[in-house]
């Protein structure tokens, strides 16, 4: 599609159109150009990618226009949340007929301490941990057959976020903002909300790698409430808005004088525009993070705590046209419960379940859910068997679960997803994806499909090669898509 710095081909679009005249349409090739999205490339200056964040249409019409990725970092246990395993309950404390290698030594079967119940018309089982979320089960497609490559956090986080576990590659959000731009130029197009600091692997989780830096996620530490701590340089300590407006008016006048001498140049124009955008961003960004503007019943619906607040912020962001919002449960790896799984999972789900349920209701009420793809999951799941004590790695309480990349659960809702279904399955204990396994690459391919991209064609030329999110992998899971 676009090559290394597409902006500098010797045949720019403008040049081409001039050369070919009506030839394009006559030959019916405009469709191919459209597929390749070059017609949506910068239409003004051939030399500079002016504002690469301007909204662009995808390859074809996709139902999803934006994404909220709820990242339960650390690895939530699927058999305690969305993968109901009656057989596991029966075998509590028994040795399973097989165990698979995970990061650490594991022992006998550990039944889920949580109660499962059927919800909705679809009657899908969900554990008590997510009973608020479960109210929306008929809008949710639960993918029970996810699998990844290794049972370690670092590579699995990178795989889930960047489609490659070791090397430096752009994140999903970067690819999507690269492909679609963003709808509100007054806000960053790709925002990663993570309270208290960074998750494991830090900013690599939202890196743009070889894609231009503007496609990198903007990290917002939602632990803070004051705007200047949320977005860099968004407020001015010494001048009021009005005083700044005066400054910008003068700036515009001076730039006008300069233009008379320098000639009209789209690059100069873009710079002028970007000051106006920045000025508006100050207001809009301040506004969007201020959840106190919400009516009390909305605040009550989301609940208390930082997760509730950031879920509400996520809704406010997508509502204003932000393309990709990733909501991390917390810094580090909160869901990594090698010990005391019952206590910790209950606490963690307690922090976010009500908010997630409220978010889904809220999106639906506002008519946003149809166009907003909501994804929930971690970098992997957890073992159905108990983790055994190992000095230095856990507290040895023998009441937690190890990492499990062989099988885990991710759910999706909205944005063209066919809800009210479970897709794929793990074995009877929940150890390994056995029926219709979905690799992380397949999940990515499906996400891109929902957004209107052929995942094989959303590419970027770098170092002599056309890279793509799914590398040489990925199959779209059509059953997950509402046709």
């Amino acid at each position, binding site marked *: 599609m676009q090559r290394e710095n597409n902006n*500098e081909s010797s045949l720019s679009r403008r040049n081409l159109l001039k050369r070919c005249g009506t030839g394009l349409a006559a030959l019916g090739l405009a469709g191919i150009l459209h597929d*390749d999205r070059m017609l949506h490339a910068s239409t003004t200056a051939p030399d500079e990618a002016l504002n690469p964040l301007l909204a662009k249409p995808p390859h074809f019409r996709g139902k999803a226009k934006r994404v909220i990725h709820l990242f339960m970092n650390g690895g939530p246990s699927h058999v305690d949340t969305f993968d109901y395993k009656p057989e596991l309950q029966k075998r509590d404390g028994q040795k399973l007929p097989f165990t698979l290698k995970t990061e650490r030594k594991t022992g006998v079967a550990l039944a889920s301490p949580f109660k499962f119940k059927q919800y909705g018309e679809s009657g899908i089982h969900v554990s008590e941990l997510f009973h608020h979320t479960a109210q929306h089960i008929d809008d949710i497609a639960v993918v029970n057959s996810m699998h990844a490559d290794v049972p370690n956090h670092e590579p699995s986080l990178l795989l889930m976020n960047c489609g490659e576990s*070791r090397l430096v590659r752009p994140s999903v959000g970067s690819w999507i903002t690269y492909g679609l731009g963003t709808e509100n130029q007054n806000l960053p197009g790709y925002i990663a909300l993570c309270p208290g600091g960074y998750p494991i692997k830090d*900013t690599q989780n939202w890196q743009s790698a070889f894609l231009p*830096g503007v496609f990198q996620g903007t990290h917002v530490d939602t632990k803070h409430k004051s705007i200047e701590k949320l977005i860099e340089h*968004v407020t001015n300590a010494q001048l009021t808005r009005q005083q700044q407006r005066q400054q910008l008016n003068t700036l515009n006048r001076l730039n006008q004088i300069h233009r008379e001498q320098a000639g009209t140049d789209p690059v100069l124009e873009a710079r002028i525009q970007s000051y106006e955008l920045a000025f508006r961003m100050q207001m809009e960004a301040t506004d969007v993070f201020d959840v106190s503007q919400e009516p009390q019943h909305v605040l009550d619906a989301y609940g208390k705590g930082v997760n509730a607040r950031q879920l509400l912020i996520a809704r406010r962001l997508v509502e204003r046209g932000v393309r990709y919002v990733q909501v991390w449960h917390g810094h580090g790896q909160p869901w990594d419960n090698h010990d005391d799984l019952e206590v910790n999972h209950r606490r963690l789900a307690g922090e976010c379940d009500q908010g997630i349920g409220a978010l889904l209701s809220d999106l639906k009420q506002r008519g946003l859910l149809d166009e907003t793809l909501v994804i929930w999951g971690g970098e992997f799941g957890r073992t159905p068997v108990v983790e055994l004590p190992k000095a230095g790695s856990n507290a040895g309480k023998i009441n937690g679960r190890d990492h499990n990349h062989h099988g885990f659960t991710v759910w999706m809702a909205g944005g063209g997803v066919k809800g009210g279904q479970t897709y794929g399955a793990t074995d009877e204990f929940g150890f390994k994806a056995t029926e219709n396994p979905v690799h992380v690459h397949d999940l990515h391919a499906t996400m891109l499909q929902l957004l209107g991209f052929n995942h094989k064609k959303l590419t970027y030329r770098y170092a002599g090669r056309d890279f793509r999110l799914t590398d040489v992998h990925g199959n779209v899971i059509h059953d997950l898509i509402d046709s």
Partner: protein
Amino acid sequence: MSLVHRPNDFAIMIRYYTRLLLTWITTFILACGSADARTEDETFSSRQLDFFENRIRPLLIQHCLECHGPAKSENGLRLDSRSAILQGGDSGPAAIAGMPQDSMLIQSISHAGDYDMPPNKKLEDQEISALSQWIAMSLPWPAKRPELKELTPIEKIHNHQTQHWAFQPVTSPAIPEVKQPARSALDRLVIANLETKKLSLSPRADRRTLIRRATFDLTGLPPTFEQVEKFTGDTSPDAYEKLIDRLLASPAYGERWARHWLDIARYADTSGYTLDNKDNRYPFAFSYRDYVIDSLNNDLPYNDFIREQLAADYLDIPEDKKSLAALGFISVGRKYLARPDTIDDQVDVVTRGLMGLTVSCARCHDHKYDAIPTQDYYSLYGIFNNNEVPKELPLLGTPQQRTQFQDYFNSLKKRKEQAQALRNKHYDLRLKHIRSNFSDYIAHVIAPGQGDLIASQPFTKLTKSEVQSNIVKQWRSFFSKNRNEPTVVKPTLALLAIPDDQFAWKAKLQIEEWEKSPDRQALAKKYLKRLIAQPPQTKIELANIIGQLFSETISAWAEAGSPQPRTGNFPLPDDGLAQFVFAKKSPANFPLNELDNYLDPDAKTAIQNIDKEIEKLNNHPPDQLARAMVIQDKSNLTQTRVMIRGNQHRRGDVAPRQFVAVLSPLENGEIKREPFKNKSGRLELADKIASPDNPLTARVFVNRVWMHHFSKPLVNTPSDFGIRCSPPVQSALLDYLASEFMKNNWSIKHLHKTIMLSDTYCQTSKDRLPCTGIDPENTLLWKMNRRRLEFESLRDSMLAVSGQLDSRMHGKPEKLFGAVQSRRKTIYGEIDRQNLPGIYRVFDLPNPDQSAAKRTRTTVPQQSLFMINSPFVAAQANHLMKNVSKNNEIPLDQIKQLYRILFQRDPTLLEIEVGSQYINSAQLSHKPENLSPLASYAQVLLCTNEFEFID
């Protein structure tokens, strides 16, 4: 094959490297009506034939020939020669040259005609499109090889070596005659191209523009008003050349251009992600950055620059050892958690960075386009995999300079000694504890989880809290690993297997049996004797028996003057017990390096604390102390094998350490190259790269330099000169620069002068008709390109005009922003690759994890937010205000001063009016906490396009 371009073949000159471009080309050909059918013997351009070889030939072989080839010709159709395709089969011609839409071949593969081909699977869209392009081009087919056969690797290399422009030797092109007056050979090459389109160079820019352009270009800073005045007033004919010489001699030149090189070298001050929160700092990365700055300032010839960066340790090393810092080129990359990924990055930076060859593409499979087999990748991999980082990096500076760090080294040494002493102390304590309490610990092995029972035994000495769980663990593991040890463990286990309620009598029976049995020698004599003497009544008593035996063994050794035998030499007559007690992994005799496993938490913390202090000292040496981030060859070189599909556990053929085939001479169908002999071969590799015979190195470098002067390269993919890279429109210019560069001893400063003294460089940057219509991209160089300041220049310029720039060179990096605002040049800002400051990405600094060919240039509001809101810009505006209000109280004079400082000119009346109006109205709303009206006006000027763009 001819490489000369027919002027009307402009579009075809563009390489076919995307499907899109291919579409364009077809469109162009069709739109221009060049769809004439060619005859069989018509010659095709090398680019067309390349396209056939790379895109079409494999396609036909893979999908068509099985049924339409020599073996079978279904429907009378063969697709294995051009004439056969044109002639067609039973249903008529398969293709009509130049008319893909009317060709049956295209209709069939598009499933739009009578046939759906291939029958089992539809081709990919881009494959169909490629075949369409090919037919549109009139089915290019090499005359000499009418039959379809897959190329052998050697044939592919031969093809590329003979046909690809970038692999041809660099020769100085003929300098054409031109109509316009031309200053230099460079200009004549440019003008000749322009004249083919009836275009000309733009007029020379005015003096002020020229000095601003040249000063930003070479130093990244604006000139001062006085410098501009002096230059515009200098009427001597060589005034401009003197200016360039002065700028090239300025230390700021090296700082500016080093930053360009650091993009290629993927420079950063940290190693990336580390496990367990280990400090990821590269405390001495800066010595590489400083080396690059100094090399450029000293005009180190580029070929030497390459040699030092790959192999300084093989060359003469000066007394101050500074050349060793050059090796940072290899070592400042990201340290991945897996070594093969780190080595891959090193192969990549060397091949793409220095030669524009994407060798890393061949890591898992042969290169998809270039003739680079996987084996070549592993040949280079083997060179870098045979390197290691030495334990102590060499200290830079002369011996005298190094003496100033004596205090630091002393304190480091002291800490290390303290750490050692602490370790020894705890080691002795642990060992003593273990050896004094055998019975206690063995009781815990025998009766796990029965602490109360053990504590109540008369023979135990430790209270429950004194028992160290990690020592219990070590004993347990020792016993369980030695299950079959015959002298103590095996018999003990046999006794322990007896049910508790039958223990006393069954144990006695068992012991008596042992006494009688012929193989009783295996059982330790002393142990047996003791068991016979006092047959144990309960299992726990065994612990006391064994414990006593162990104690006695230890005492016997101590008396013999050998308290801690480590060597396994047993001078005393021995019945096997001593061997066991003093075995290598025995807790009674554990080695010092396993101390951590035996320490109690407090001691562990104490030792870790002092270790941390040592690490901190290592990572925070005195400011002036520099070490070179060297690599060295391993003492035992290992052979490298191909990793099949990049998998390090699947090894293929040996890959000798040697140069890539496609750049080695081919004689009589054989590649002439010798495996490297000198250690890992780094110097030999460097010599191959930095050779005038290497067709890529000089071309790649001059293209990079050109890019920074004109903000646009001559070759659009500066780090990929492989076969998918089309010859540049200015290919003669590129070759001229490359050959001049090498003729002048690879002098980079000479190259700058060649470019900057040309009329081409000195043109105005204004648009003009009809050029904008004919060549809107300015590919033909009819004007200078207007440029925006990069982040470094922007920040440095603001510091320069505010008078705040701290122009100290070299040294440790500083954080640019944060609580303390650094006033040093941006090149000295710390680059943490793991958490690159957002502002760097916002302003398009490339990702420091991968060698960056060129920077993207974006215009986004976050950049403007920085300009209007950052404390940094406000601070510079404040300083500007203070500087101009010191001696002037009249706003008009202050405005004039600001214009002179920022733009090196006087303001117009209109500009003065706009300025005064602003200051006056700002005065009205001014409050004490606000930026002063004059400062906020200065900030506006910093934000103007005139400040951020260079004409």
